């Protein structure tokens, strides 16, 4: 969406347009009504709530300025959750992006079977994160999992994601990254096919080996795709992995997989700690606004190439 800034300029309209007094308002109305009732009103309410302290039983709440935020950022559990989320999202993004790129560049070399390969690799996109979680829970299950068995036997590790936090973290990273490989694959495939053949051939004539060609030509040309996918994968691991966590670990063992989104849900919806949950929501909101702006800024300027 590179032309997003044009919305401020408002120049993007057809030269020939219709004139009608009520129709345009009527057409945009459903969209506006839904965004106001289910997006803006709740968001504003959340922001207000984050400045209030409600007693757990009654309906009384007092205005407490930044008390909820101060509490939040001195709470070791919350700080731990931030740390866990960062580790988790970096791990998921790097594993799924590198595997996606690797498989896509292999598939791009395999001239004969491209369509078949694509079909074989594309379908995990349609698998719900929660289902990916269930399948990997079975594969990595301490008593029944075949992968877990291999890990125990050959690596000599006392693998148990039900008991140990680190193992649980590795398990949800694998389950989350696996589901995302095909998404990254599709975009890298498209990016690779957009690399001009003439460039590769010219480099080959100059004597560059396939590896050099990949590293010095293809890889730099993929940088916009790379950046875009980093952002999308981080957003995915921040928000959409909720299903995996809820199905497989429920934030445990001992809060070791309690990522920020899951903590908002736990504290607010289960623990009914309204003020704190609202403050956490606002922190997440700020974060995603930041990511979105960063994305547009970089997509606009830094990583672009002609042709």
């Amino acid at each position, binding site marked *: *969406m*590179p032309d997003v800034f044009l*919305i*401020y300029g408002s120049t*993007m*309209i*057809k030269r020939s347009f*219709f004139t*009608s007094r009520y*129709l*345009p*308002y009527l*057409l*945009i109305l*459903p*969209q*506006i009504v*839904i965004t106001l*009732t*289910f997006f803006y009103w*709740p*968001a504003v*309410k959340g922001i207000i*709530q984050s400045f209030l302290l409600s007693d757990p039983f009654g309906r009384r709440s007092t205005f407490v300025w930044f008390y909820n935020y101060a509490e939040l950022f001195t709470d070791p559990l919350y700080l731990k959750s931030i740390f866990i989320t960062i580790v988790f999202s970096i791990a998921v993004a790097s594993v799924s992006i590198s*595997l996606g790129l690797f498989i896509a560049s*292999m*598939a791009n*070399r395999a001239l004969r079977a491209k369509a078949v390969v694509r079909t*074989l690799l*594309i*379908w995990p*996109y*349609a*698998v*719900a*994160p*929660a*289902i*990916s979680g269930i*399948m990997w829970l*079975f*594969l990595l*299950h301490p008593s*029944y999992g075949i992968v877990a068995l291999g890990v125990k036997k050959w690596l000599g590790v006392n693998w148990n994601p*039900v008991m140990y936090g680190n193992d649980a973290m590795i398990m949800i990273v694998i389950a989350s990254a*696996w589901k995302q*490989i095909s*998404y990254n694959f599709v*975009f890298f495939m*498209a990016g690779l096919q957009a690399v001009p053949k003439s460039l*590769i*051939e010219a480099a080959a004539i100059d004597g560059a080996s*396939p590896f050099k060609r990949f590293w010095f030509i293809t890889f730099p040309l993929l940088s916009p795709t790379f950046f875009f996918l980093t952002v999308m994968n981080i957003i995915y691991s*921040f*928000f959409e992995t909720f*299903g995996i966590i809820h199905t497989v670990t429920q934030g445990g063992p001992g809060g070791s997989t309690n990522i920020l*989104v899951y903590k*908002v849900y736990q504290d607010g919806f289960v623990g009914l700690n309204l003020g704190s949950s609202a403050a956490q*929501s606002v922190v997440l909101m700020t974060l*995603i606004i930041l990511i979105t702006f960063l994305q547009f800024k970089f997509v606009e300027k830094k990583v672009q190439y002609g042709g």
Partner: protein
Amino acid sequence: MVEKTPLLDLFTYAFLMLGIFIVGFPILYSLIAATLPLEEVSKIPMPLIPGDQFFVNMKEAWTRGNLGTQIMNSFIMASGITLGKIAVSMIGAFSIVYFDYKFRVIAFASVFCTLMLPVEVRILPTYEMAANVLSPLQAFWDFMHLNALVTWISGNDFELALNWSLLDSYTGLILPLVASATCTFLFRQFFLTVPEELCEAAKIDGASPMTFFRKILFPLSKTNIAALVVIEFVYGYNQYLWPLLVTTNPKMTTAVIGLQNLIPQADDLPEWNIALGAAVLVMLPPVLVVLFMQRWFVKGLIEKEK
């Protein structure tokens, strides 16, 4: 390839096979597990030769997980979201691109900004909203002290309590997810590439805006619609957090959430064959949609996100 590199080609195909194997292994293994009887599936390691219990396990999963109802719920939710999103954002984009009016830019900006407000960052207030959709009106009514006003005018005690709950209903599952910044964008982008002459010609022929939309714009958008159908169906079917919040009645639960009840816990019989059978069944509808509409899906995915 540019030159002949037999060794590298060999590696390419070997690694490609390995990649496909990594991607396909979990599902293959789950499928095998779903064909085995309990005593086989709980063997360590589980045998890799499929058994003959597939239909027995599927039947058990179907009744125990109440999958008939749940897959139906997921299907209704996914179709509702797909149709709703496409309809709402298509006419919205039509309004933004083909009309010039005062609040056009504001309308578009406000739709765009919803990108930054996924349901995950406003869990509780959105839930409260769904529990009573009329609460903003109520807040306005209370804020203006209209109860007192009506009491004063009519001379009777008066109190207005507006309540319309979307919890445990299809409307509640679908409606809040129907607004979509990305779909509106996609249609806007596409409409902007439609030649000006078409609109001119339609106007000269005396077509009303809606006739132009129905007879010209809609048929032109078919490929885009096909692509969005795939993407939004998968999105709707795989929703997790929102259905988890709005449904408490087991009859309204969606399939992806219901699966959790089938996972064997520490004290249960390790009936992974049932759990994985159910998982395979539940993932089938969106996977089939993606596989059969692959061409539109790939095109749509890339255009939607860029």
